[in-house]
């Protein structure tokens, strides 16, 4: 099996706070890994480092065997990594279609100025996450949370990402929307996409992942099959009193 993502001895300090503490894990191509931990455990910070939005204090991040530590965020995206944001970040004065268009744009001024946008590709991406053609002309500022999550996903897929880092895909969604997004992700898994998924909704995440890691205060406390991770003594302790568990 090919290793898609290999994080080794990753450390991130914010002043005195250690947000990522000597974290190592591997993610095989086509596999799906869940990343769990209480609020403030450092899950989002791991994503930001993999994307190059934050520089790690030390440690390495390899993508298909190549150290990507020196690459900019757009360069990493060009290689096929993409993320969604925990709090959706749409371009709110643009339409849904234009939001997807930004994701589809190649990082080249020449083709941005002289090339044309691909309507059918935009339709296809929009529909793949559950938008109707009519929805595509809505302004992103009109969308409710469920649609914002779909848009987030469509725009990330539009960049051509094959390894998807999904931060709280289910937060703020209705049960209907959860099963819709869940079906979409299952379909993407069948098509060979690789996932790193963060979610506080453990039951919704369960069918989407092959294994899981749990972190607390930046440190890994358990790793393995999801049920084992959940049964782990330290994981239970860290979640105790965390009102989000199982919500």
């Amino acid at each position, binding site marked *: 099996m090919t290793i898609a993502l290999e994080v080794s001895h990753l450390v991130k300090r914010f002043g005195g706070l250690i947000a990522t503490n000597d974290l190592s894990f591997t993610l095989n191509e086509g596999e799906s890994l869940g990343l769990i931990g209480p609020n403030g455990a450092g899950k989002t910070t791991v994503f930001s480092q993999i994307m190059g*939005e934050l520089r790690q204090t030390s440690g390495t991040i390899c993508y298909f065997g190549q150290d990507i530590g020196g690459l900019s965020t757009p360069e990493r995206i060009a290689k096929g990594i993409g993320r969604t944001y925990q709090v959706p*970040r749409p*371009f*709110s*004065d643009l339409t849904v279609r234009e939001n997807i268009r930004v994701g589809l*744009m190649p990082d080249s001024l020449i083709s941005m100025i002289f*090339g044309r946008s691909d309507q059918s590709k935009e339709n296809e991406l929009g529909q793949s996450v559950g938008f109707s053609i009519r929805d595509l002309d809505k302004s992103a500022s009109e969308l409710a949370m469920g649609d914002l999550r779909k848009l987030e996903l469509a725009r990330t897929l539009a960049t051509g990402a094959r390894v998807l880092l999904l931060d709280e895909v289910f937060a703020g969604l209705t049960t209907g929307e959860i099963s819709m997004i869940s079906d979409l992700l299952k379909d993407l898994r069948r098509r060979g996409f690789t996932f790193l998924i963060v979610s506080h909704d453990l039951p919704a995440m369960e069918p989407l992942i092959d294994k899981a890691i749990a972190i607390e205060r930046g440190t890994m406390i358990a790793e393995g099959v999801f049920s084992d991770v959940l049964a782990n003594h330290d994981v239970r302790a860290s979640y105790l009193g965390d009102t989000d568990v199982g919500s």
Partner: protein
Amino acid sequence: MPEFVERGTLRTMIQACYLAIFAMSWDVLSGRTGYISFGHPFLIGIGAYSTAILSKKFGVPPEYSIPLAIVITMFGGLVVLLPALRIKGSYFALVTLAFMELMYQLVQVIRPDLTGGTRGITGIKSLTRGAEAGYELAVTLMLGVALGLWLLMRTRFGTALWAIGMDEDSVRGSGLSTTRLKTMAFLVSALVAGLGGAYYAHYTGSLAPRALFDIDFLFTIIVAALIGGAGTIIGPMFGAFFLIFLLEWLRPILPGAERYFVYGGVALILYMYQPKGLVAIAQSLRDRVRGDNYDHRA
């Protein structure tokens, strides 16, 4: 049309055309990306001084001195402001403001024999004879710039600039190098500023550094873009004409700098009523009449 209007009105129209060009130039960078430039007089000044010096002191004909002035503006502006484009928001504004002031100081100390020092330059060769021809040239330039920018902003490049104004990190998160996009927006903006500045120098025939590198001039440009409607092409043009005629109309009533307070007040009230500017107000009126849905674009 020019035959029917008074010479004074014609001059006012010409002023409005040039202001529209400057406001469009500002808007392509600042109205779209949200990087507020306080340095447009600096760019316009490079264009104006370059063609003035080249044509007056070195005898370069305007058909060469103007394109040269544009190139000098683009690259001169880029060299000093590129580092600033990497920093965010308000710092960009501060750095550009500093450069405007620096330019004012520089033209006085560096080679005053060329720049004319504090007195500026007079006797810059005119390109046209008479107010009508000057007006036609100004309108042509304005419409040419508007068309060019409109075509450019319709592309994916235009959409991306707009997206930067909404959430720059998210544009990077969509795989686009935002520094490159901002640099290109800056170059386009500088091109238009240099072009406007150079033609304006030949139109007025003289340059006075205190009037050019001046806060009043800067605010007139920004207010024109904002009250007309930033992020559009028609907005800054609309705003420029509105502002110039408002100032002209206020001149007999309020001869001094108080006029600027009045337009500041008008701008503020308009802005509170509709932050997207006069064009959006006009559109919503039209749509209300026709009963359409409200759309914010122009």
